[in-house]
Each structure stands twice: as structure tokens, then as C-alpha cells.
């Protein structure tokens, strides 16, 4: 290859480095501390409402069966709210540095997380059909953890740690008595997100 050809290839390569690094820097910086904390609070409110729907009773086969459709709507709404919070904070922070919120890297991240979320949806439907709804909470932690761990491959180590924490917690939850499961939801979806948000904010700014 001629020296000129090498320079052309190098120029293309350096343009790629610029694009990827700027995307990564923006994506990284849009993992806002505030969004983590708000999402954690949404989860804690969801747990509180779940307890109210169960009449203050612990999670058990008979207490959850009748409330299952309302619980599905509640946690579906919580998931949508969490996604909306994350999207809006991403959009705000991306705009601050003159970037778009949807980028090639963002698309890769969504594709990486999608299989685990789909698996969670399928398992939710399966557990509902087979009257195993109370056990779904641990499965949600596992699937969410796998999704976050996949996102962590495109991001910083803290995200991978968060994913691992959810996976381990989900496995532990499934081995624990049903009465503990709802509190594990508060600890993981609530507490882990809040802690993550505070750590990210202190380390990288609000």
C-alpha cells in the first residue's frame, strides 16, 4: 500500500475514533445520578403500592393470585416510567453537549439489553399462566441484571457491577422464602438504583 493510501486509511480510522469516543463520552455522561435515584424511588413506591394491593399481607400464592392483573399493570407502568425518566435525563444531558440522544452506540445498547427484557416478558406470561406469579420477582431481578450487564459491555465498570448485583440478588431471592421477595424488590430495584445514582453523581457529576 502506498504512503498516500496509508494516510487515507489512517484518516478514516481517526474519524472513526473521534466519532466513537465522542459518542461514548456523551453516553457515559448521560448516566445521570438523578435518574438512578428517581428510578429507585419509583421502585420503592411500587413496592409500597404492591403491599397495599395485597392488603398488607406478605407475598404468597393465595395473596398474589387475585391481584395479579393489577400488579402486572402497576409494574408495567413503573417500568415505562423508569424508561421515560432515563430517556428524558439522557436527552437533557446529550443536549447540553450538543449531541443527539439516539446514536449508533445507543442503538447497540438497546439491542444488547433487549433479549433479557424479552425473556423477562415471556417468563412473566409463563409464570402467570401456571399460577407461579409470586416467584416472578426473583426472575425480574435476574433478567434486569442480565440486561444491565449487557449494557455494561458498552459502558463503565459500575454498570457491570450493578448488573451483577441484580443477577446475584435475583438468584438469592429465588432461594429465599416468598415472604422476603417483596422486600428484596425494594432493596434491589429501589436501593441498588439509588446507591448507583449517588455513586455515579459523586464520581462524574449530577
Amino acid at each position, binding site marked *: 500500500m502506498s504512503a498516500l493510501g496509508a*494516510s487515507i486509511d489512517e484518516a478514516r480510522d*481517526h*474519524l472513526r475514533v*473521534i466519532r466513537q*469516543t465522542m459518542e461514548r463520552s*456523551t453516553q457515559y*455522561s448521560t448516566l445521570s445520578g438523578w435518574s438512578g435515584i428517581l428510578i429507585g424511588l419509583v421502585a420503592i413506591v411500587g413496592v409500597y403500592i404492591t403491599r397495599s394491593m395485597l392488603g398488607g399481607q406478605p407475598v404468597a400464592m393465595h395473596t398474589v393470585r387475585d391481584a395479579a392483573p393489577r400488579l402486572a399493570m402497576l409494574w408495567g407502568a413503573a417500568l415505562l416510567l423508569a424508561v421515560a425518566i432515563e430517556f428524558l435525563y439522557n436527552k437533557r444531558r446529550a443536549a447540553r453537549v450538543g449531541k443527539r440522544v439516539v446514536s449508533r452506540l445507543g442503538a447497540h445498547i438497546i439491542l444488547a439489553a433487549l433479549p433479557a427484557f424479552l425473556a423477562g416478558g415471556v417468563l412473566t406470561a409463563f409464570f402467570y399462566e401456571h399460577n407461579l406469579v409470586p416467584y416472578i420477582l426473583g426472575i425480574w431481578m435476574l433478567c434486569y441484571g442480565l440486561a444491565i450487564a449487557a449494557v455494561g459491555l458498552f459502558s463503565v*465498570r459500575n454498570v457491570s457491577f450493578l448488573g451483577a448485583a441484580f443477577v446475584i440478588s435475583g438468584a438469592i431471592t429465588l432461594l429465599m422464602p416468598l415472604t422476603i421477595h417483596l422486600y428484596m424488590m425494594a432493596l434491589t430495584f429501589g436501593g441498588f438504583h439509588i446507591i448507583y445514582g449517588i455513586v455515579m453523581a459523586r464520581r462524574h457529576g449530577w
Partner: protein
Amino acid sequence: MVVQARSELFDSVESLDEVIHQKVRLGIMSALMARPEADFRFLKETLNVTDGNLSIHLTKLEEAGYIQSHKEFVRKKPHTTYTPTDAGRDAFSRYLAALERIVQAAGQNV
């Protein structure tokens, strides 16, 4: 036209800023263009380089006047953040323009 394109291509290659024209330094400048400031840890994680390697290139950019560092103590630990200077921003813009000229000239059947 081909001769002119080759001439422009050579000129653009020759005009590439030697300070920025290195992958780690280019990565540092790119990261600092995307966010108002970055600390050492962020740059290290984003660029996936060792402490020593990153330090060398940050020093080179600082000596060239393209970035400036701000040192402070956070909970008794040293914490350094980096921001691009106006000269650094201008140099990066010129470098980016030169790269784009090279790729465009290459597309004109050189």
C-alpha cells in the same frame, strides 16, 4: 482534476497537527470536545489505556497548550480534571477539517 485532488490530499496530510495526530491524544481531545471537563479516571476508562500511557499523552497536550488541568483535593485525595483550551478547540477543529479533506480528496479518484 485528479492532479489537483492529489495535491490537495498531500497538502491536507502535511497539515495534520502532529500533537493531535496520535490515537490516545486524539481520543483525549475527542472526549473533551464531548463534555465540558473530564477527570483522569473517566479518560482512562473511556480510552482503555494504562495510567502511565494516559499521563504521558495528557502532559504532551498540556505542554502544547491544548488542554489545561485543574488539581484539587477531594476527601484528602488528589483529583485532577482536564478541560480543553481555546487553542485546543481550534486545533481540534482544524485537525477534523483536515481529516475530512483527506477523505473527500481520496474520494475524487486519486
